[in-house]
């Protein structure tokens, strides 16, 4: 059941993004930023956390989840360290994700090359 929920929720978020890409002139970079910012805002107004608890990876893996993590990190750090937390929190909470993305894509580049589209 968890798997099914994650699949459907994650798929629904991706479908919304596909509609954005197909029907608007927004470049992919902008769409990604929209997702992150949406996640952060939904996190700030307290909506994303309960949603993520219910949907699991379906809400955590898409970029909206990253936005939520950024907000959560900043909030925790501000609570603990005050003003300085604004600058540290986002990076602290997202450090595992960012490092994993860098390290795994670097490892992948040892074994694979970009190929022509056909």
């Amino acid at each position, binding site marked *: 059941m968890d798997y099914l929920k994650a699949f459907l929720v994650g798929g629904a978020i991706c479908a919304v993004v596909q509609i954005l*890409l*197909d029907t608007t*002139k927004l470049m*992919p970079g902008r769409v990604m930023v929209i997702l992150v910012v949406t996640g952060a805002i939904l996190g700030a107004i307290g909506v994303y956390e309960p949603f993520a608890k219910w949907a699991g990876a379906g809400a955590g893996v898409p970029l909206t989840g990253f936005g939520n993590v950024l907000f959560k990190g900043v909030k925790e750090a501000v609570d603990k360290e005050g003003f300085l937390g604004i600058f540290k929190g986002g990076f602290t909470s997202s450090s595992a994700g960012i490092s994993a993305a860098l390290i795994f894509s670097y490892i992948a580049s040892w074994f694979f090359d*970009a*190929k*022509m*589209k*056909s």
Partner: protein
Amino acid sequence: MAEEMKSKMMGKQSILFSNPPVIVAGSSIAGKKEGEGPLGHLFDTIQEDPMVGKETWEEAESEIMKEAATKVLEKAGLKNTDIRYLVGGDLLGQLIATYFGIADLNIPTFGLYGACSTMGEAMAIGSILVDGGFADRVMAITSSHFASAEKQFRFPLDYGNQRPFSATWTVTGSGAVIIEDARIHKKNSNEPTIVIKGVTVGKIVDYGLKDSMNMGACMAPAAFETISTNLEDINVTPDYYDKIITGDLGYVGQHILIDLLKEKNIDISQNHMDCGIEIFDKDKQDTHAGGSGCGCSAITFTAYVMKQLKEGQWKRVLFVPTGALLSQVSFNEGRTVPCIAHAVIVEAI
């Protein structure tokens, strides 16, 4: 002398040559996808390996251009020392495909940037040099590569970006022609001789469009300006040409071009052809709006248009490669896409 000089200039921006220079040979090197398209059987060489055995897309493009240069010399039965000047360019920054590709040929070189209109620009300048008596033989050459162009102008292939339906497909390929002075040309077969009768040099046309994924719409107004000026300058109607051949407007641009000309009471709907539409089968090959890139018009011209002229199917064509002159900087800074089109009158005699 002054009288003679003046007589070559026609109207606002056109030239009719006193001794129309001869196109002695043309070469076409095409990529795998182009080879699988409707014109596949006409290309000299189909390069199955998109990397051409090299390390980078840019090196691969250079190698394809070198092959086109070598092939055209071979077909014309000439050596590199027989060529007075090479005039050419490509899409990449600082023309790296061209300069790295042709370095070994040791031919004095003019580098051009006309984006996808480069073949027209190179043929125009080449024939001006020849008819003006500044060169006996000139090689006009250009290339493009899907992967290097995507990397420079859109997104690197590694990024896995999705392409919208109005986006054209950059042709992987390189085409070259050798343009020779008619006074030294020796006719050695019964085939008609292909000559460049004249040219119309295009102006920058900018209708304020900004969409780099919809080049056909951006470039159509430039083609419109150049074609209507050509007809006006040399005082002919569209049926003077068996074909009016644009470079890479694709399906979207073709519509706009025909409509724009209709508003001026010029009807080219019967004899218009677009290289970008001819080169791929859009239903079978998933190329969306058609082919584009310097190589698109170049190899369609050298493989298909020259064949039709040689076989007597067409007598006279107006070859109008179109170029979108954006750069990655101008695009990122949100500027519009200025465009250009050069027209070359090619005739079989």
